[in-house]
């Protein structure tokens, strides 16, 4: 009974009260039978079943189950694409509505099999694997909606990727039969192989009213700029062949031509180039003696020698991509994948995704008639540029060419950017590979400005209870002519600030703000009271700074408003023995930080410190009651990529007798903690952003044998 109670309360209802032995036996049996059944089922129904779990598609899992739709002969045909269509004339933006996420919604029509009146399908191939992949990717993305009434963009399930397999008239009729067609408004068609013999139009020939076309192979005459999207021609080799990324650098060949169907006029010219420049060029053609099939796609030959394609592309710096019957070539994708710089010769071709991609950084475009000059043109490109292009080419492939999903998502993102231009992805986001994104610096204060002197600066004094010292600091600072306001941050919650009458009399406004908690971060809070752009952060015991030094510091800040400009200079060093960073406060020849015990900086950094400090640095600082100044140095250096500026020789701040390391800093554990801070911050930032410099700023006439009264800043202390 005991056992039964136990099992009853715990075991599943299906297997109650059994002996363990029996239970295992039955569970095994059950599993075997079940597995057998599943296996049988899978075997029998394999073509219909679903690769991933069948969870979402229980009703239809084969294209053969799609309903058959007969197109009447008289069914209307859409008009040919209107060349003057633009987003503001042919696209219904109201359907996209106001959207807090700034994301369009995309609807995909359910699959239908269209046939004409006698039952012949409109397409010889039906749904292709690539189009299926594309639609799957879209349906899995954030863009997808199944609610046709909420959709902004509609994608027909009729595959028009390859015009060769289409019956033009019937396909057009099929499109017009779509329930929401409405003159093709907000419909998007994907096509990679447009046109047909004899003259191969550069856009899909299927009449399509106002539908948008994502086409591979547009020419400047068929491409409706800002409306259509130029897409790449997908190469199946992207999925079949895994080409590991190669480090940019010189390759065995300089120029390689791998296309097999090059017009003889061009082949003659290429051969002439080869004669002139020999081994630097490799001209491949198809292999005549190989059997047909897969092998012919993956092999190339030169004078009987067989090369693996696309692997051979990795052996060349530049790879030729010439136009064929069509402007868009799948070779472009292979070339990019190989990290080879494409040399594109296809006059009037609109490069894939050229609306957002800066192809100048990844390719060379040469007019067809300049083919004979190709070698000279390419030779004139600097090596470092070639390396950057190789890297960029590979990045373009990875991000935008590598799969149907990548192509589809990029297309939708481009359309999305047009509809919500104020939330569009930036040039850097589109074009910079992650290596560059990681190392590049785009300072938020990028405009070269020297702010006027007149608004002055706000001094923010952090204090706890050293009233006497505080009053001395206030008195000293108030002598500085550009001081606009004094802000005392009262960090002591147990004690009230002295009465107003007791404070030193100063000519500028003096404000005291009381904080809720005794946190070091309070000194960097962007108080509304700070009305100037320049902030002087100063400790309540910095009494040695002269007004000339302070005024000069402010003048230097005006010349470098995006930097920390301060007096106490410090350095970080790499400790080889310990294998970590070390904090250095000795007087050294180098500076990588200026402490905010006395430093000017832009108010913007208050915002950054308070709201954008990465990781848990702010909490760490408040918990340790230390290193807020180091954190500020990290933050500014990281976002601007620039070193701070130490002004004047001043090294003693608290009293004439003091050494450089005084007050708080005397404590040895304090020093250890500051080294720890540097290591902690470096790991949070994932890099060491601090920059080391060997200079400091002095007034132009400092130490000059010149009448002191004629100097702007005569009173610069020597230490």
């Amino acid at each position: 009974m005991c056992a039964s109670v136990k099992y009853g309360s715990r075991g599943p209802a299906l297997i109650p009260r059994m002996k363990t032995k029996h239970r295992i036996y039955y569970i095994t049996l059950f599993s075997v039978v079940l597995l057998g059944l599943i296996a049988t089922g899978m075997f029998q129904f394999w073509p219909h079943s679903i690769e991933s779990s069948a969870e979402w598609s229980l009703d239809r899992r084969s294209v053969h189950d799609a309903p058959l739709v007969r197109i009447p002969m008289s069914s209307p045909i859409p008009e040919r694409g209107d060349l003057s269509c633009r987003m503001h004339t042919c696209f219904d933006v109201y359907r996209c509505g106001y959207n807090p996420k700034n994301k369009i919604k995309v609807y995909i029509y359910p699959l239908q099999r269209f046939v004409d009146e006698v039952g012949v399908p409109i397409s010889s191939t039906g749904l292709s694997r690539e189009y299926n992949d594309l639609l799957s990717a879209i349906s899995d993305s954030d863009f997808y909606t199944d609610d046709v009434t909420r959709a902004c963009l509609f994608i027909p399930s009729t595959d028009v990727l390859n015009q060769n397999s289409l019956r033009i008239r019937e396909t057009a009729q099929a499109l017009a039969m779509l329930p929401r067609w409405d003159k093709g408004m907000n419909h998007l068609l994907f096509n990679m192989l447009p046109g047909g013999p004899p003259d191969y139009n550069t856009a899909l020939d299927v009449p399509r009213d106002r539908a948008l076309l994502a086409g591979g192979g547009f020419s400047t005459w068929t491409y409706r700029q800002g409306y259509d999207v130029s897409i790449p021609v997908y190469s199946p080799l992207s999925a079949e062949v895994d080409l590991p990324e190669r480090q940019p650098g010189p390759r065995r060949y300089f120029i390689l031509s791998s296309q097999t169907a090059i017009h003889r006029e061009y082949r003659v010219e290429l051969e002439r180039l080869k004669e002139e420049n020999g081994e630097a060029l490799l001209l491949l053609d198809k292999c005549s003696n190989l059997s047909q099939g897969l092998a012919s796609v993956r092999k190339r030959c030169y004078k009987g020698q067989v090369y693996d394609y696309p692997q051979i592309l990795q052996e060349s710096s530049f790879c030729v991509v010439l136009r064929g019957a069509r402007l868009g070539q799948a070779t472009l994708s292979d070339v990019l994948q190989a990290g080879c710089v494409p040399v594109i010769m296809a006059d009037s071709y609109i490069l894939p995704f050229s609306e957002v991609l800066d192809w100048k950084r990844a390719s060379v475009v040469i007019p067809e008639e300049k083919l004979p000059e190709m070698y000279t043109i390419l030779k004139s490109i600097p090596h470092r540029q070639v390396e950057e292009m190789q890297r960029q080419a590979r990045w373009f492939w990875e991000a935008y060419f590598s799969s149907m999903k990548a192509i589809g998502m990029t297309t939708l993102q481009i359309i999305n950017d047009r509809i919500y231009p104020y939330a569009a992805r930036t040039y850097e986001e589109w074009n910079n590979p992650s290596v560059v994104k990681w190392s590049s610096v785009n300072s938020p204060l990028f405009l070269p400005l020297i702010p006027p002197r007149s608004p002055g600066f706000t001094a923010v004094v952090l204090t706890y209870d050293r009233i006497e010292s505080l009053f001395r600091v206030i008195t000293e600072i108030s002598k500085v002519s550009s001081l606009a306001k004094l802000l005392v941050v009262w960090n002591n919650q147990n004690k009230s600030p002295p009465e107003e009458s007791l404070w030193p009399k100063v000519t500028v406004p003096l404000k005291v703000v009381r904080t809720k908690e005794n946190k070091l971060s309070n000194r960097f809070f962007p108080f509304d009271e700070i009305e100037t752009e320049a902030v002087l952060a100063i400790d309540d015991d910095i009494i040695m700074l002269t007004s000339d030094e302070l005024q000069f510091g402010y003048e230097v800040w005006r010349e470098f408003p995006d930097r920390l400009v301060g007096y106490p200079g410090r350095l970080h060093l790499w400790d080889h023995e310990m294998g970590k960073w070390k904090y250095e406060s000795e007087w050294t020849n180098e500076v990588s930080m200026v402490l905010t015990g006395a430093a000017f900086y832009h108010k913007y950094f208050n915002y950054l410190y308070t709201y954008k400090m990465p990781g848990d640095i702010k909490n760490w600082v408040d918990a340790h009651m230390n290193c807020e100044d180091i954190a500020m140095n990290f933050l500014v250096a990281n976002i601007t990529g620039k070193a701070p500026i130490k002004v004047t020789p001043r090294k003693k701040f608290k009293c004439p007798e003091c050494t450089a390391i005084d007050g708080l800093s005397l404590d040895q554990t304090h020093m250890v903690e500051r080294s720890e801070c540097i290591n902690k911050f470096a790991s949070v930032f994932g890099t060491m952003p601090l920059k080391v410099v060997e200079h400091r700023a002095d007034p132009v006439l400092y130490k000059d044998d010149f009448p002191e009264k004629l100097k702007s800043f005569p009173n610069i202390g020597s230490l």
Partner: protein
Amino acid sequence: MQAKKRYLISLLTGAFLVLLFYFGGVVPGPAATGSRSRHGYNRPEQPWPHFSDPLQHLSPWDHSDTEDYNVHISPRQKRDVNSSVYKGKRCRMQSCFDFSLCQRNGFKVYVYPQQKGEKISESYQNILSTIEGSRFYTSDPGQACLFVLSLDTLDRDQLSPQYVHNLKTKVQSLPLWNNGRNHLIFNLYSGTWPDYTEDLGFDIGQAMLAKASISTENFRPNFDVSIPLFSKDHPRTGGDRGYLKYNTIPPFRKYMLVFKGKRYLTGIGSDTRNALYHVHNAEDVVLLTTCKHGKDWQKHKDARCDKDNAEYEKYDYREMLHNSTFCLVPRGRRLGSFRFLEALQAACVPVMLSNGWELPFSEVIDWNTAAVIGDERLLLQIPSTVRSIHQDKILALRQQTQFLWEAYFSSVEKIVLTTLEIIQDRVLQQTSRSNLMWNSHPGGLFTLPHYSSYLGDFPFFYAELGIKPNPKFTAVIHAVTPLVSQSQPILKLLVSVARSQYCAQIIVLWNCDKPLPAKHRWPATSVPIIVIEGENKVMSSRFQPYDSIISDAVLSLDEDTVLSTTEVDFAFTVWQSFPERIVGYPARSHFWDNNKERWGYTSKWTNDYSMVLTGAAIYHRYYHFLYSHFLPSSLKSMVDQLANCEDILMNFLVSAVTKLPPIKVTQKKQYKETMMGQSSRASRWADPDHFAQRQTCMNKFASWFGGMPLVHSQMRLDPVLFKDQVSILRKKYREIERL
């Protein structure tokens, strides 16, 4: 056993159930699957069902197609066909532009001589004189790649007093017209009431248009150029700087969004302005219109006019412009309006409401970084849209307006040069600017692509690319006196410079009339010494972009400069932090002389400086290229004739690019061998004329630059421990302590 049977049964039942379920016999109702969610958001009910049939592959190789095609069509024929078919509204560079004209002489622009009796508006006169003063100009039509009419085509509004009649016949009779091939036509206004068409009223043939207010429908991509609408008061050169003096945080201003302008009650382009009142809230969104324009506005006024007019009078346009975060730029009768440039200059982020307007220089400028492109159809959403823009984005947008204004729009000269540079980029495809060069400081006009196509070769993009300049420098010593004694300063200088750990090589530029000294006369150094004979022995040759300069940094030296190795080292380490500036020793200053009403030059010791002379300075080698290729020959030949002022001109140039002062290092003021008595060089400095010439130069340069680009600085950079009372042994740059 009983139990066992029971299990068997239940097991089988279960199995059958699973089977049924599996083969679709029992399908759970839509309700069961409908509300399922994954990843936290509701999955749509019927997404694309991931068909896994053995679907056919798309075969993207068109080899066989191409082979067939190649049999029939020769590529050359195909090109010829294209260029004969695509004319008029379908013109492109490939079909309507003759590249061969540009091949021999590069990108040269010819301006037709002005005919007597033809009146030309001031604006068009400014355009023409800008071209004539630019480095693209040629007076020989045989050399020209591009032709510009001297007939005023700016205002093609028939009702305008500026309208030029009979343009059609006048143009056709031009001997070089050639149906407009390789011609560029500037236009600000076209069409007139009521429909304001974009037709110019004469057949432009195959000419390119540089036109304001051009619509995307009429705009021929990569053929036409969209230019901004500018007023007749727009300055010819220089131009005012942007109004942004500093970045304010938070970036919000008194108003969020403002507009003040005319309202057209009916007709083309009136809808948007008529609807503005819906969005106006008289607080932070202030959109004001007036009906008071034209002679008989009273007759046409509608119910709202009086109310609108009263509200309109309450606000001052200037005050609003300077105190608003965003400025609405709705279309008027035409697509473009003056509001656009006004907002740009005022650092008021333009909010475009002008559907179908091809924005100015859209071919190269990424307007999403400086403006909000709205849709007239979504006017009512505009306030919520601009409110949703993040502060950081506003900060960036605002700074970008200033950059673009100063780089491309602040003067007629900039607008015209930008137009020409865009066309040049198309003509010389291989050497054209990338998007980054156009859209980041200092902009396309100062970033010459013939120098290099690699961004890292310029001093401006190190941070963006995440790289550092090359850690070596090339010294260029300007030699003008013959080598006679072994104690000559140049030899000492050579030795001390060569000893620098950062020195890659030394170039001696032999600008002396005497022949080159024998090789063995030069001291033996660890770095190579390259001696180059100056071209024509003129002053400007010291700033030639010699191929032998392989490092990013150039240390420019006079032959009698006295500089120690330590000083060289220190200056170079400082330069590495400021690669876009001139970093060096001899500082000078400029000032405005109120009495003489002109710029003055001083070498006196002052509290500030604005120039660092190139007798001892480090700067990026790109500035050699810029000096040689950007500056007009008029200034360079002035320098050569005077054999003076080259250093001032270099400072003007670099400050015009950076908008920042140079950097003086250390206390050192005497940098010349003062003992030198007789040499020609020394006499040059002693010459009183020399100083007067420099004053003249300053003013000449300032007038070409359209303003004074030099900026003062009050600080110099010293080694960190300079003159500190610590042991000399602790100091890295000990030599600098001694004077």
